[in-house]
């Protein structure tokens, strides 16, 4: 692979000063108005039985930045993701729930249309299609394929050329994510981290405006975590908007330009990583979820304490994931 292929193009947001300009000059309150929001969410509520999983009054996501959505376990982050990407329906549908992406209202749009409009997501439990090869996974990500039309599909002439172009693009992305030598392997043979990378690469096949990553670092070994973080920053530097869910504040600190915090379904804080982490509401949120964790006054803010928390949360998550998996077909 030649160099220019592996080196991503550089956009305006590669410049830290430009990013700073977009994250300052307004008050960092929950639901703050952003200079140029790509995603605006209003009044979204989701209840399961009697329990409110998500109740977000207003949230804006700034275009071109990496925004982290953090919160303790059970804060409703993934449910929120599912709602805005069309994989779940809000309880308040039709009662003031409204959200728009890039100026287009998408609150009644199906999951697939949301993806086609340029907002592509990944999943917490990786959905790499393990009985398909890596390249087939990638090719599924390409948009507007003539060969996906039932009638044209029988005639190779109508889609052969496009297929070649898509494959070239896939090769390029695979090379960038260091997966090219696995091109013809079944995705099931990849490691957990490689699957996360594949899922991200596959999402990029559609040239999204915004990519939404659900816990991209969960279950990935530390060495690969660094590379994943690097990839996420590269995406931003190329001009893409990134929104990702994470419960580990420590991880978030290094790469996110903006952090939104959820607790018990609500948005409790917004701001830069450092300000958010000293916000009493955030500390309360994390402490509230872990009454049994006595961290002392300032202990919470040390990295060790955060790591301890994260480990606890991860352990709980693992139990929850195991349960979810054991529940069988959804």
């Amino acid at each position, binding site marked *: 692979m030649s160099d220019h292929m592996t080196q991503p193009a550089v956009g305006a947001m590669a410049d830290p000063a430009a990013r700073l300009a977009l994250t300052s000059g307004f008050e960092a309150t929950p639901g703050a108005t952003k200079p140029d929001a790509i995603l605006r969410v209003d009044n979204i509520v989701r209840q399961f039985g009697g329990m409110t999983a998500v109740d977000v009054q207003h949230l804006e996501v700034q275009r071109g930045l990496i925004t982290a959505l953090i919160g303790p376990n059970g804060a409703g982050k993934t449910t929120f993701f599912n709602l805005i990407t069309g994989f779940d329906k809000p309880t308040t549908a039709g009662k003031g729930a409204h959200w728009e992406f890039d100026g287009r209202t998408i609150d009644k749009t199906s999951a*697939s*249309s949301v993806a086609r409009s340029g907002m592509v997501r990944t999943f917490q439990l990786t959905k790499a299609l393990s009985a*398909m090869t890596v390249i087939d996974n990638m090719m599924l990500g390409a948009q507007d394929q*003539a060969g996906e039309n039932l009638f044209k*599909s*029988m005639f190779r002439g109508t889609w052969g050329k496009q297929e070649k172009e898509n494959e070239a693009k896939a090769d390029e992305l695979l090379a960038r994510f260091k997966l090219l030598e696995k091109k013809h392997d079944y995705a099931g043979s990849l490691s957990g981290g490689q699957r996360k990378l594949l899922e991200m690469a*596959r999402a990029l096949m*559609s040239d999204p405006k915004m990519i939404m990553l659900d816990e991209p670092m969960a279950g990935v070994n530390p060495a690969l975590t660094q590379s994943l973080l690097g990839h996420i920053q590269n995406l931003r530097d190329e001009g893409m908007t990134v929104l990702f869910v994470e419960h580990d504040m420590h991880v978030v600190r290094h790469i996110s330009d903006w952090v939104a915090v959820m607790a018990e379904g609500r948005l409790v804080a917004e701001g830069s990583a450092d300000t958010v982490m000293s916000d009493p509401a955030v500390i309360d949120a994390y402490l509230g979820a872990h009454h049994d964790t006595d961290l002392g006054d300032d202990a919470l803010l040390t990295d060790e304490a955060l790591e301890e928390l994260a480990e606890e949360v991860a352990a709980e998550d693992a139990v929850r994931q195991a349960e979810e998996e054991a529940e069988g*077909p959804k």
Partner: protein
Amino acid sequence: MDTIQFILNGMMREALSPQTAAVAIAVIGLNIHFGFTGLLNMGQSGFMLLGAYGFAISIWHGLPMIVGVLFGFGAAFIFALVLGAPTLKLRGDYLAIVTISAAEIIRYVGRSALLVDFTGSAQGIPGSQYRTPFANLSFFGSGQFTLIPFNYTDVADGAAWVRIIGWLVAIAVIVLIVLRFRSGGAFRGIAQAAGMVGLLVFGLLLLFFLFPVPQQSTGVNGWWVRFVAWILVAVSTLVVYLLVRSPWGRLLRGIREDEDAVRSLGKNVFSIKMQALIIGGLFGALGGIVYVLPASVQPDSMGRSLTFFCYTALLLGGAATIFGPVLGSVLFFAARIGIKYTAAAYVPDSIMNNQQTEQFSYIVVGVALMLIVIFRPQGILGNKRELRFNV
């Protein structure tokens, strides 16, 4: 020796029979549903019955044959649409329950005394009412012939050694063909493809040489209907091959594994599943039409058991493979007859009477289905790594 020849002749006759071809076409359709898309269609016999009814009723009431075929396809198309619209958004087992129930409803309605003028109620529609236009198309003439006039009796008076060598060669050829298919690149490159076609033709000629089956040329159940039926099997196989190697086929396989993942990539999963349901259902209808050509339209012969036989044939040959449905159907029917004849020939009547050999063969079918699914879910031709049952 003669008993064995008799049993093998019977198996050959059954393997070639138009009803085997008909089921093969229906299984090709089921393969699109279950094998490639992971749709648990438990009502393929309903699609077959609708195709048969559409065809037979139209011709019985004086419409031209082509209209009958279109009515058959139209009925299956609407059936797929009606079943798919509410269930394809739900969990997989709902489709199974709804399709099996709907197929039964079709059968109950078909055998209702109220519709005797249309469906002939439980008695069904005799083949003589709708067969004529099809038989008239025949260019095979009348009379009777054996497919290749030169057979084993012409070599050394049909001595045992001729046949035994012939059988061994035939087995070797079949094993070779299966192995070539399993290795995947059976048709990759011109030389490979030519070799493969040569091998297939040689195998067929050898089988005709070893097991001469005389049939009427046109007749009720003659060479003409066999010829058309197997041509249709070949065309159906080709169509499915073209479909599944395309990006559309890739979508099906993606949906089979995880439809949420495919949805997250901006694909309209519902629409693709519906297309798959319809296409597979149309093959089912075509199978149904061919199924009743040499027989009559009998609602009770196209019930759940037929669907289950389709599944057995599909899993035997290998779900999600191109040639699996054809191989599976041929083996399924030939093996069943083989078991029946063998039991009849070698098990004394006091232990198993004639009727019981039939039932015994079905017991073996049931047990075989269990064994295949447990020990070799990918069937004969399938790829274990690719085939997962994730419905």
